[in-house]
């Protein structure tokens, strides 16, 4: 049965993640939030989310919590992605294409550099 094989794989993945957690210094949690209301989805939020998760996989970015939220009332700026790193103020991005989503992950989440071109000042 393939399911059992996959659960074995998952146990290995868990061990990998545990090892990384031990190595990683506590730099505060990183949260990435994607707007997934009807407006966000229609504007391409799933593609942005897909790019975010793919970048986590390809660049092996550990310790990021990805969540979704409903419509926040900025429908014209969707897809919207928000990044919260530790105690720092929340950064909101608008018009997040898959390419911008990858840049947010590589530049902001991994290196702490805000992607100014798509930042929204609330």
């Amino acid at each position, binding site marked *: 049965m*393939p*399911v059992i094989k*996959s*659960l074995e*794989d*998952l*146990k*290995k*993945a*868990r061990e*990998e*993640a*545990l090892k*990384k957690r031990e190595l990683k210094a506590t730099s505060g949690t990183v949260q990435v939030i*994607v707007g*997934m*209301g*009807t407006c966000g*989805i*229609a504007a391409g939020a*799933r593609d942005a*989310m*897909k790019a975010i*998760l793919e970048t*986590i*996989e390809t*660049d*092996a*970015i*550990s310790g*990021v*919590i*990805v*969540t*979704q939220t*409903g*419509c926040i009332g900025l429908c014209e700026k969707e897809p919207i992605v928000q990044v919260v790193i530790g105690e720092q103020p929340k950064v909101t991005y608008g018009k997040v294409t898959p390419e911008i989503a990858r840049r947010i992950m590589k530049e902001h989440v991994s290196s702490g550099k805000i992607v100014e071109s798509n930042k929204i000042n609330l």
Partner: protein
Amino acid sequence: MRELSLHLLDIAENSIAAGAKRIEISLIEDSVLDLLQMSITDNGKGMSPEMVAQVTDPFITSRTTRKVGLGIPLLKAAAEACNGFLNITSELGAGTTLTVRFQRSHIDRMPIGDLVTTMVNLIVCNPMVHWLFEYRYDNKSAVFDDEPVKDTLGDIPLSEPEVLTCIRNMIEETVLGINPEFLQDSVTLTNQPIRR
């Protein structure tokens, strides 16, 4: 929204907003009866009969119930254009089931689309919900239940890189085990330019 999978993402958001702790998604393809059916069953707060009557009406809902909005009326119109229907049964305090059915071979029937991405998004972004996904093709069926996954992981988040790969593979295996052409079908259909 030109994909059933995008509508699924949208409808499931309503279940999450209704405080559901368990959401069951079922996708049925039947080549003999020529139907494509998707159901979403949640144990959220449910709706009164009046509210159920309202959510499928875009002219009432867009003004009074912001949480539901246009998503359901759009899906309903798409199903009815394909000899299908959209039906909601709900009970206050117990939960809601939304069922949408299409004539599978109808020329205007939207593609299933990127279902695997939708499922991964829902599961990873909403870890407090117990997700169940059933896929049926003719008389074969398979179920993906995320509870064994979460039990195995313990306190490791679902968004860890290796875990994401595992979850995606497990969902892919669930559909491919039943219908080997599922992904090919859903992806090529999605990428086709829309001709009008």
